[in-house]
């Protein structure tokens, strides 16, 4: 009988040991995981504007007004890099929201809208329409619209194919967030920008 008890004790000890070694913490698991979640959430909150995808590669482009822009010249500003095209309905739907953001944060944010259009006239027609409908935002010098020839930046650098996509950086041009598609609203954008500005 002593031997039986010894064998059973060894099994129980093995199980308990394994449990603790694997970090489950036995019956305190729920409590422990709640604590971990809490601390992770706090950490996430603190690091929310920390670089999540590394430094954005610097690139240059020619804006529609002919100005040569290099992203290094925009250091200190939050960049909203939007990849879009006039033949992409969600992109067209989302564009006014981006303009609204640029207007609301005109001191801190620069909107770079890189179009994958292959027809200049379609692009110019759309921009003309935007100028008529959102004159204040389109007049601002923090709205830069450019045609991305051969999608050299969109595909070649950012590996972006699912238009629209919007990359948001902090002031040091670390990429902190990305909206995939047009399924976002002003509150989402404000929340991301608030976190970047807070840090």
């Amino acid at each position, binding site marked *: 009988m002593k*031997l*039986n008890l010894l*064998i*059973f004790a060894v*099994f*129980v000890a*093995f*199980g*308990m040991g*394994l*449990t603790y070694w*694997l*970090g*489950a913490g*036995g*019956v305190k*698991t729920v409590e422990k995981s709640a604590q971990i979640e809490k601390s992770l959430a706090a950490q996430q909150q603190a690091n929310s504007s920390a670089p*999540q*995808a*590394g430094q*954005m*590669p610097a690139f240059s482009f020619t804006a529609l007004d002919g100005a040569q822009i290099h992203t290094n010249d925009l250091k200190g500003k939050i960049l909203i890099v939007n990849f879009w*095209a006039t*033949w992409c309905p969600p992109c067209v739907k989302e564009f006014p929201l981006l303009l609204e953001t640029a207007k609301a944060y005109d001191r801190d944010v620069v909107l770079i809208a890189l179009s*994958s259009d*292959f*027809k200049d006239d379609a692009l110019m027609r759309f921009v003309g329409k935007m100028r008529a409908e959102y004159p204040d935002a389109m007049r601002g010098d923090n709205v830069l619209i450019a045609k991305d020839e*051969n*999608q050299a930046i*969109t*595909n*070649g*650098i*950012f*590996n*972006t*194919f*699912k238009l629209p*996509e919007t990359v948001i950086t902090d002031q040091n041009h670390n*990429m902190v967030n*990305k909206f*995939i*598609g047009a399924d976002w609203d002003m509150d989402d954008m404000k929340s991301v920008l608030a976190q970047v500005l807070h840090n």
Partner: protein
Amino acid sequence: MKTRLFVRSLNFAALLFLIVLVMCQASVFAQTGDVAAMTDHPSNGAADHGALNNVQIRFDDDLYKLIPVLHEGRIKPLGSFARHIKHNIMGDQDDAISFLNKAIFNPAQAAMDHPDEFSENAQVLRSFSMILPLSITYNDQENVNFLMLKAKIPEIEEEIRQIIKDKGGNPENYSEEELKKVGLGYNLQKITQSGAQNALFKVIPVEWAENKKLAAPWQLINDGLGSPKARENLDLWADLANAYRHGDHDLWAQNVRKIYDNSIAHLGISPLRLQLEIRYIETNPYLWVILLLGASLFFMGAARLRPWRGFEYGALISAGGAALALLATIGLRIFILQRPPVGTLYESILFVALLCALAGVVLYRSLRLKGLGTGVFAGFSLLVLAPNILQNPDSLGVLSAVLNTNFWLATHVLVITAGYALCILTALAAHLYLYHAGGKTRSIADQLTLGDKVYNLSLISLLLTAVGTILGGIWADQSWGRFWGWDPKENGALLIVLWLVWIEHGRITGKLKPLMFQALSACLTIIVALAWFGVNLLSTGLHSYGFIDGIAYGLAGFCTLQLIVIAALYIRAYRSNQ
């Protein structure tokens, strides 16, 4: 004299063990090379040649095998992924890296070589279909790939719309140039469609996905997971494909190193786990254990024919070696999978075999070869039968969500499988008892010792299965919200407990004669087979992670055979005792 004989026997057994080890190790090295020592050099493994030019260059570097892949919910080395793919498609795991390389880097050739096999498994062929060169010329540009043309798709579609508008839908009216354009548009559309759901080969580090782990190349396009870093890694894979197709091993090795370094840095994991997994699957410890247990049985047979202590010690050392190898195997699995050991049917067999081998070594002290033989035979039989019970080879799989609770796995499952092991040992010892009870030269003292051992083992079996079943109820209550649901698996566990309770009470009250108690104890093999494997055949209940099929006839045959054997042994022993 006795000591000298013992030392000589020990040396003989140790030498034999060493020879087996060296032979196994040599065969493993001959196939794979040393992972740790050869990470920068082409291995001397099975040849994998660049398929386009027949250059005799290998593309199965050890470092390549270690590239992390996200598959079946966990990060595993590419070598392990390749074996899974090869088995799924071809039914074996030989030269899996070469097979995978051809499938992903030269899919047209792979599909031609195995048209039937790939017709049902085309996903792997399209893993990199966006970066492999297409056999077309676009705007005088050769070697274009889908990724280069992806940006042009809207423009090409617009041109095709214009052609249809101008000349209608009949291709006979189109010029050669227009036909080319329409054909290109069609092919690009086909490639897009074929890649739409492709998420098999997750090797590209991604930052935007929730888990920030690895994504399949097509997911970068379809799910918007692309980023500058992902692009860099995709280009490395494109260069790797290029190196493979042109037999350029230097370029291959450079890119393998970069891909490996990038992935490890991105995931922030230790490569040790990946290395150990490769070592584990290539060493095949399962075979080692079977060999050692087989050697132990051989020595026992030899000792029975010629009573020499050397054979006896050889049997003991082989069994101990097998137990150690099983312990190391289970320990390695815990480390690789970062979870408790008994989460799948395969692992439960490993665990039960370990306990049987250990129990054999322990029982040797009191029952000598009878005890050792019982444990070793149980472990050996289980491991030999296991491939027939399990349809798929072990893939070090992740657990169903419901099983992924460490505390309950480490208690309930370990205790209940330990109960299975003890039941099997009890049953085999009872077989032995019945056999000797029917013999002409039986020793009464030996019979009593063996009978007592069967009783003791059955008590431990009852303790473990009862506690395991109750712990299972607690686990079920926490996981599924009810303690008991008359689920087949639960009923199976209960069946063992009730059987043991019945025979223990029968023995205590004297209603069951010793011989009948032994016969009913021997029947535990049938009860355990039904509870462990049989209920899984029903494919019903909440224990769906354990469902199996295709062994119904085998199981029925086993149970029938056992009934006949036990009945025959009982009748023989009964007559002998009269």
